């Protein structure tokens, strides 16, 4: 059962505040995936503090400098269930996990960070993982 929207709102806003667009319906996901140009980071947000509590600050830190994806989008696992299922359908060969992060380049999945590689790590570690992926796949902003 989804948590109360009142309780999850700060978790959504943590990503919205740093420029993420929320994909709350399957149609939003399809629209996002239809635009294949450039790089995009999809964060599967989660209530679980065991991992998501460090995932979101890690994303924020990673985006502060250096190369970064051109588009930032998020779905909320367990909350926006249909949108999350639709997003996962674009990388259905990978097990579902939340939180998790997927980096797309020209519509292709080029990097994926599953939950078990976030658990137990601090935000700096998560940011380092992301920066490494951004450095490999994203251009430095002009």
């Amino acid at each position, binding site marked *: 059962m989804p948590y109360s929207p009142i*309780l999850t709102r*700060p*978790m959504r806003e*943590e990503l919205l505040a740093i420029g993420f667009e929320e994909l709350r319906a399957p149609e939003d996901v399809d629209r996002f995936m239809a635009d294949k140009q450039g790089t995009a980071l999809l964060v599967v947000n989660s*209530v*679980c*503090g*065991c*991992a*998501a*509590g460090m995932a*979101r600050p890690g994303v924020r830190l990673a985006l502060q400098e250096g190369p970064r994806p051109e588009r930032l989008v998020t779905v909320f696992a367990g909350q926006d269930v249909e949108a999350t299922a639709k997003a996962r359908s674009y990388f259905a060969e*990978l*097990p*579902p*996990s939340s939180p998790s992060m997927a980096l797309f380049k020209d519509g292709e999945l080029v990097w*994926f960070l*599953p*939950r*078990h*590689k976030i*658990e*137990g790590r601090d935000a700096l570690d998560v940011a380092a993982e992301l920066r490494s992926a951004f450095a490999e796949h994203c251009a430095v902003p002009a």
Partner: protein
Amino acid sequence: MRTFAQHEHKHALHGITVVVETDGPELWIGRCDDIVEAGVMLKDADVHREGDSRPREEWLERARLVGVFPNHRQALVEAARVVSVRRLAEL
């Protein structure tokens, strides 16, 4: 922002994806919910059994990279069978 749910009463591995080796043919991977007297309680788990079509090392390597498909919503690996519990991320 950290979670609002508190888990202080759970084992330190609560919420962590673990590999549970047993003294039998089964190797479990799942999210540890708790470790109690009865055994290791897993959520969203998968199990490899000796003789499965995919060799154990291949299954484990794939899990190490991307995780496992949750073929068991919950599972209890009996304490008497448990040989080791390790974090998947540390393999």
